[in-house]
């Protein structure tokens, strides 16, 4: 009985020693991985900085102006001037006949007709 206990104890010691050894080496691997990730992060950050500078360069006003002039036939972009502003009430709404049935649901039609009537009252 005592012999068995002894063997069991020795076995436990061996088990724990192995476990500690493995944990130790796993930790070292994890630390090395963290280091390499930090290195990768710094490289990525440098790349981001380069890309931001490139984006700012591609978006500079002279280039955008030259591009808008080059593709004028498609874009037709002109400088903003005061005549481009107006009141929203002057935007024409499409003509809607209130009795027209829009859907098959009579309740929905009633609600839509009521909404249209309200909008037309407000705009007058």
């Amino acid at each position, binding site marked *: 009985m005592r012999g068995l206990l002894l063997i069991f104890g020795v076995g436990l010691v061996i088990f724990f020693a192995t476990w500690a050894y493995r944990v130790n080496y796993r930790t070292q691997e994890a630390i090395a991985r963290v280091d390499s990730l930090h290195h990768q992060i710094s490289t990525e950050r440098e790349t981001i*900085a380069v890309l931001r500078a490139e984006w*700012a360069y591609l978006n500079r006003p002279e280039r955008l102006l030259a591009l808008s002039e080059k593709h004028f036939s498609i874009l037709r972009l002109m400088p903003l001037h005061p005549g481009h*502003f107006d009141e929203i009430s002057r935007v024409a709404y499409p003509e809607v006949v209130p009795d027209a049935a829009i859907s098959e649901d009579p309740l929905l039609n009633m609600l839509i007709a009521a909404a249209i009537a309200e909008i037309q009252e407000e705009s007058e």
Partner: protein
Amino acid sequence: MSRSPLRPIAKVLRAREDGVDPALIEAQAKAKRMRKQRTSERRRAESRLILLALTFVMGFGAVGWKMALLAASEPEEPRTTRITVQIINQRADIVDRNGIILATNLATTSLFAHPQDMVDPVAAADGLAQIFPDLDAEDLLRVFLSERKFVWIKRKLSPEQHQLVYDLGEPGLQFGPRELRLYPNGNLAAHILGGTSFGREGVHAAEVIGMAGVELMYDEFLRDPANAGAPLELSIDMSVQAAMRRVLRGGMAMMGAKGAAAVLMDVHTGQIIAMVSLPDFDPNHRPNPPVSGDPADSPLFNRAAQGKYELGSTFKIFTAAIAMEEGIATPTTMVNTAGPLRWGRFTIRDFHNYGARLSLMDVIVKSSNIGSANLAREFGAQAQQDMLRALGFFDKLAVELPEARRSKPLIPSNWSELSTMTIAYGHGLAATPLHLAAAYAMMTNGGLRIEPTLLKDATLPSEEDRVISQETSDILRDMLRQVVVRGTASLAEVEGYQVGGKTGTADKPNPQGGYYDDKVITTFAGVFPTSDPQYVLVVSLDEPVEDSGLEARRTAGWTAVPVAAEIIRRIAPLMGIRPEYYDDETNPAVTLTSN
């Protein structure tokens, strides 16, 4: 093993036969038993002790072994809890008020040579001369064959150049990492940003230091790692700056001017939204300062913040302000404008003969020098000096540019009555366009003192900084509006934005004495929208000529004013100012608050 019974019957029987006492036998057996028990107990106790001893030895031995290991190893910081270190550039970015990048750092390489390691110097020199057209093959060869151990070849390389030099395959040509300062927008905001160069240069890094402009002013802030890469936010709006530069450049070309300056300033806070000085330069390749000629002609010269000019009739509005604040006149008070006005041996004339008298309003609208001089005689030099000092004309600019260090206006050392009279219409005191913009902002924002600033800083002035009263400010707004409606600046009318402002045409001083006949500096100081002023625009042209008509015209109304009108037409929609249309009869833009 043979068992010995407790009561050895055989032995007892034999003992009885032999006549020996059987109790002795029993005692012997018992003694034997006791002995055996004691031995086994002792053995057990001994083995327990040994086991215990072994355990302790193992325990202490492990501790001792670990201590020995620690004593023998190198000390190292615990690395399992490392905080994420942000990789910050050497120099922070500069951005505009909307976050658009104006200046940033870029990682590149530098090129240097170790002539002692070179394998084929001739091929290297030829290859480099081919890649870099500004390098001479013979000079390079001479350097490569010399005794020098280290030679800089190029301080900044593009990635393509890096690849081409690498492909030469010369071990004596080596690269080092370097950060370079990039201004993606080219000439835009050149005077504001300034430029940088390299300070201490090493193989692995080089110090980027500011040389002028905001880069120099905030050099410490930009290099400070404690800011964690936070950018420097300027008050400049880049799209407005781009539009203003484009229009100003076109106007300068059309008028044949040799220089131009424009400043757009927020009336309530003094923030500079855009500032352009032409001619300008590319801060990526900052030119060397000039060694000959007039420094004011160099592209490095900031005409808006450094150039001191007599600003002409734009000063008349300050005269009107002083007159109203001193209580000697209201907009309808009639002022003597009978000319020419003689004082000693000096004569003051108006551009046209405006009759014997004009109202104060018309003195400004028609721009009468004689009227202004007469008003100045009434309120005197002290009142004029006090007002101009409050408006900032006696100090250098507070703007964050090192070039503004020497921008203190030129004031007469002897402020005689004649000086008072001439300064009333803007001759005799030389100040920068930025001074003028700040002063006009103070006049039209309700009368509160502001200082020009390039930082995105929205602190509003309070009642303690009052320069003129609210009523005077409103009346001045109306006067400036009338100048555009029916006065000298009628070309400044931009539909929807009720522009108001004052023109100024000043003859350029001749270095040999006196003034030029045909060279002028024209200025227009405008404010918009006058119904609720938000921005001040000052445009100044150097030697413009408007010659589309039969005769050449040089006054501000024909030169600076149309350029300013086009600038406002272009940038006011960009800044989201909604055009408002007023009818002078039923719904005027500005109503007079006092009569």
